[in-house]
């Protein structure tokens, strides 16, 4: 039966790495030479068991252009931190050089101190539009707190992006499976 959620790229960490790229052509971590392109308007990233080698570490993200992460200070975002043990937080960033927290918020090294989620990517390959990402995530953080995040992000540059880079704020990304899908038009 034909379907509408199509796997484009996937990378499972078998040994710790400082960063990974989903899509990005020949710069992609999987070696599949996959890219975010005009085949689909909307892409989805599924990730699970995302963890780091150092305690209390963030996993941030950036768009890639021709396989190279864009480090310009044009990353904005806002999200709600959904917390099980205290009041929820509103968090935002403006003109940062990365999308902070997006794949790991204070990821720990204790039992199941990992993060999982589903993110949607919009207009990445459209050269005349900004790139947008929605975030839905659940985790146990470095303080053993069960926590979630819901929000939206934008990279305020109208350019064609071909992938997304994920990187640890310190040390390495130690675990996780990261999968990029296209949503069929």
């Amino acid at each position, binding site marked *: 039966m034909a379907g509408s959620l199509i796997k484009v790229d996937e990378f499972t960490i078998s040994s710790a790495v400082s960063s990974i790229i989903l899509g990005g052509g020949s710069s992609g971590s999987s070696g599949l030479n996959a890219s975010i392109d005009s085949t689909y308007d909307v892409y989805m990233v599924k990730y699970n068991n995302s963890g780091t080698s150092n305690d209390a570490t963030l996993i941030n993200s950036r768009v890639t252009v021709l396989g190279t992460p864009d480090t310009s200070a044009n990353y904005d975002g806002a999200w709600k931190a959904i917390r099980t043990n205290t009041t929820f937080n509103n968090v935002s960033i403006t003109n940062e050089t990365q999308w902070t927290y997006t794949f790991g918020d204070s990821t720990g090294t204790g039992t199941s101190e990992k993060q999982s989620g589903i993110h949607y990517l919009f207009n990445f390959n459209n050269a005349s539009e900004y790139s947008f990402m929605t975030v*839905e995530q659940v*985790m146990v953080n470095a303080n053993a707190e069960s926590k979630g995040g819901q929000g939206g992000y934008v990279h305020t540059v109208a350019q064609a992006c071909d992938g997304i880079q994920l990187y640890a704020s310190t040390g390495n990304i130690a675990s996780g499976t990261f999968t990029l899908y296209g949503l069929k038009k």
Partner: protein
Amino acid sequence: MATNLEFINSFEVTGTVQSLDCDNIFSDKYDVYYLTVALKESSAGNDQWIRMRLIDNTGTVITASEYDYAQLAMPANTGFYDTNRATGQNVILYGGIGYSDDTGNGGSLYVYNPNDSSSYTFLQAQAGSTVGNVLFGTKGISVHKSAETIRGINFHTTTFWGSGTVNVYGVK
């Protein structure tokens, strides 16, 4: 081209029930699952938040105090609130999957790593419901803080459901 969202099973409310077991749905075939949930109370006045528990690898519904949960409640007629949260509970009372009354509801749920015996099981949900004729949006998360193999999920209410369906998919 093959799809990567694969239908696993569907569970339907038949008769008037307080509990719906979706058993034998998690396996080593997928790490991540997507469920659609729509449940309707049997009559007016039977209104409750939809509760969840996980089912272990022997088929037993887990009632130990191992669940953390939190949801953002977004009522249409007043301010949003974040007080639906707790740790170390024996049921997921506010997991974000919504509220069922006699007008029904609709929600979706992702479940991460249920079959991994070395990992906690993580859930993330969102729903639209009506509570006393007021629209409620909910976004929630929950964690079963015990590393063990989970094979299913139980939905239940303290009142009665008269109809409804849960569909289960694997995200390959």
